[in-house]
C-alpha cells in the first residue's frame, strides 16, 4: 500500500530524512518511532504530498507522490501534529467543509459527518465553535477530519498527544478499530503507544532508519537473556535474604541476582539468566525444595524502551568503525559540501 524507497529530504542546512526505505502492507498499523526531531513528521509530510522529496520515491496505493499527487491525496487522511482547525467555524460546519474539500459527493456529506461524529464521540459538540473546544476535543475533531472521506491510508502524526489517559485509551481503541479497512501509519515518541496499537514498528533516529520489524520480532531479536522477578516468603519465622540469594545463585544458568526489596519475612529478587538459558522452572524448584514459599515468579520482558535505547546506542557505537569504509567517507564529504 505504501512504498518508500531511498527517501531523502534535505532542508537548507540539515538532512531531515536520509535514505529511508520501507513498505507497508494493506490493512496494517505501523508505528513510526523516534525521538523528537528524528524525521517522522517530515516523512509523513512527504507521504501526504505536502513536501516533495529531495531524492528517492514514495508511493501510496501505487501512485507516486510527485507524479500523481491528486490521486494520492484522494486516498489519504492526514492528521498533522497540530490539528488543522479553523477556530471560528463550528465543528459540523468544519467537517462539512472538509468533506466537500476531500471530494465527497454533496449528498453523502451529512451522513458521513454524522458517522464520524459518532465514531469520534464529538456529536455533543457538533454545533460548538472549534475555538471554544478543549484540547482533547480538538484532537478528536482532527481525527474525525482525517477519516471523514474513508481513505485507504491514514497518516496520524502523534494522534494521542495532549489527551488525558482515558481519551488516550479511547483513541487507541478507535485507531485499532480502523485497522483492516485502512492502512495506518502513526508516529509517536511514546514507546508504549506502539506496543499497544501497532503491528509493525519503523524506528528512525536522526533521519536514518534504525530498524523495522514486527513488535514481537523486535523484542525477541533483542532478548538474549531472560529476566525473572521473584518474590519469596518464609511461612515460619524470618527469612535471611543472603541465604536465599546464595541458593538462587547456585541454580544452573543464573547469571546475576539482584535484591530488589526485603521485609521481615519476604524478599524480592530480580534474576537474569545467562545468554540463551531458560531458568524459570529451575528457579521455582530450587525455592520450593528449600522450604520457602514462592509468591511470585514473573518474566520481565524487554520493553520497547530497552530496544529503542539499545538500537540507538548501537547506532552510535557503530559509527567510528564505519567511517573507515570508503563509501561512508564519500557520503560524509558530500553532506559537508
Amino acid at each position, binding site marked *: 500500500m505504501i512504498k518508500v524507497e531511498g527517501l531523502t529530504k534535505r532542508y537548507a542546512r540539515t538532512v531531515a530524512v536520509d535514505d529511508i526505505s520501507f513498505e507497508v502492507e494493506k490493512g496494517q498499523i505501523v508505528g513510526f518511532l523516534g525521538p523528537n526531531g528524528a524525521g517522522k513528521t517530515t516523512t509523513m*509530510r512527504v507521504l*501526504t*504530498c*505536502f*513536501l*516533495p522529496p529531495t531524492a528517492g520515491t514514495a508511493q501510496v496505493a501505487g501512485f507516486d507522490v510527485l507524479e500523481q499527487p*491528486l*490521486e494520492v*491525496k*484522494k486516498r*489519504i487522511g*492526514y492528521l*498533522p*501534529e*497540530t490539528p*488543522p*482547525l*479553523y*477556530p*471560528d*467555524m463550528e465543528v459540523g*460546519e468544519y467537517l462539512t*467543509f*472538509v468533506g*466537500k*474539500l*476531500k*471530494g465527497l459527493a454533496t449528498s453523502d456529506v451529512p451522513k458521513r459527518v454524522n458517522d464520524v461524529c459518532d465514531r469520534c464521540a464529538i456529536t455533543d459538540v457538533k454545533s460548538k465553535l472549534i475555538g471554544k473546544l478543549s484540547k482533547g476535543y480538538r484532537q478528536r475533531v482532527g481525527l474525525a*477530519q482525517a477519516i471523514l472521506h474513508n481513505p485507504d491510508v491514514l497518516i496520524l502524526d502523534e494522534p494521542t498527544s495532549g489527551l488525558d489517559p482515558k481519551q488516550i485509551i479511547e483513541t487507541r481503541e478507535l485507531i485499532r478499530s480502523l485497522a483492516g479497512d485502512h492502512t495506518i501509519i502513526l508516529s509517536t515518541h511514546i514507546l508504549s503507544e506502539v506496543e499497544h496499537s501497532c503491528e509493525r514498528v519503523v524506528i528512525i533516529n536522526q533521519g536514518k532508519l534504525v530498524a523495522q520489524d514486527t513488535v514481537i520480532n523486535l523484542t525477541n531479536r533483542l532478548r538474549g537473556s531472560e529476566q525473572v522477578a521473584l518474590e519469596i516468603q518464609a511461612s515460619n519465622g524470618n527469612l535471611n535474604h543472603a541465604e536465599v540469594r546464595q541458593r538462587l545463585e547456585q541454580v544452573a544458568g543464573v547469571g546475576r541476582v539482584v535484591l530488589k526489596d526485603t521485609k521481615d519475612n519476604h524478599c524480592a529478587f530480580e534474576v537474569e539468566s545467562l545468554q540463551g538459558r531458560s531458568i524459570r522452572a529451575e528457579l521455582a524448584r530450587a525455592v520450593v525444595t528449600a522450604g520457602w514459599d514462592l509468591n511470585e515468579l514473573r518474566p520481565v520482558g524487554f520493553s520497547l524502551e530497552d530496544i529503542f535505547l539499545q538500537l540507538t546506542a548501537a547506532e552510535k557505537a557503530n559509527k567510528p568503525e564505519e567511517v573507515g569504509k570508503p563509501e561512508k567517507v564519500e557520503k560524509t564529504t558530500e553532506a559537508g559540501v
Partner: protein
Amino acid sequence: MRNVMVIFKKELKSYFASPIAYLLLAIFAVIFGFFFYSAVRFFILQGMQMQMMGRGAPMDVNEYVIRPLLTNASVIGLFLIPMITMRLYAEEKRSGTIELLMTSPVRDLEIVLGKWLAALVMYASILAVSGINIAVLYAFGRPDLKPILVGFLGLLLQGGCLLAIGTFISTLTKNQIIAGGATFAVCLMLWVLDWVSAYDQSAWAKIVSYLSVVTHFEPFSKGVVDTKDIIFYLSMIFFGLFLTTRSMESLRWRA
C-alpha cells in the same frame, strides 16, 4: 469548479463570521458617507452661486458628484484591500490549516481562485454600501445610470487587481501584519506611479505611469470603457494570481 466554490464559500463565510467584514463595511460607510456629504454640499453651494449669477444652466450630477465620489471610493479601497487580503494565506500558514488545504485533492490554482473570488466579493459588498448614498441622489435628481455602472466596473477591476497582488503577498509570510503592511506599500506605490508623468515625458516615465492603477481608472470614472484599460486590469489580475499559484507551489519546496 466545485472545489473553487467550496473554498470560496468557506472564505466568504469566515469574513462574515469574524468582525473583519463588519469593521470594513463600517469604515467604508463612514468615510464614504463623509465624502458623499461633502460632495453634495459643495454641489448645492455651487448650484446656488450659479443661479445667483444668473447662469441657470443645469449642472451635471454625474460630473460633479458621482465622478469625484468614485475616485474617492477607489482611494478608500486602497486602504481596505490590505485588510481584506492579509489573512488569506498568512492565517492558514500560522495556524497550520494550510496543511489541510495542501494535502486535500484540490489543485493549487483552485485554492487561489476560491480565495481571490471570496476577497473580490467581500470588496464588492463593501462597494455596495455606497449604493445607499447613490440611491439618495436618485430621490432628488436624475443621474445617468450607465456611467455609474461603468464606474463600479472600474472599481471592481482595480480592486481585483490589487486583491490579486495582496493575495500573493499573503502567501509570503506567516505574519498578517507584515502581509497587510507590505500589501499597503505596494498598493500605494502602484497608486502614485503616475505622478512621474507630471515632470517627465520620457519613454521610461510613460512605462512607469502606465503601470499605475490610477491611470487606468480615470476613463472608467468618466463612464468610458476602454478595452486597453480592461486588458491592463485583467492582465494584472492574471499576473497576481499566477504569482500566488507559483508561490503556493514553492511553499512546498521552501517549507
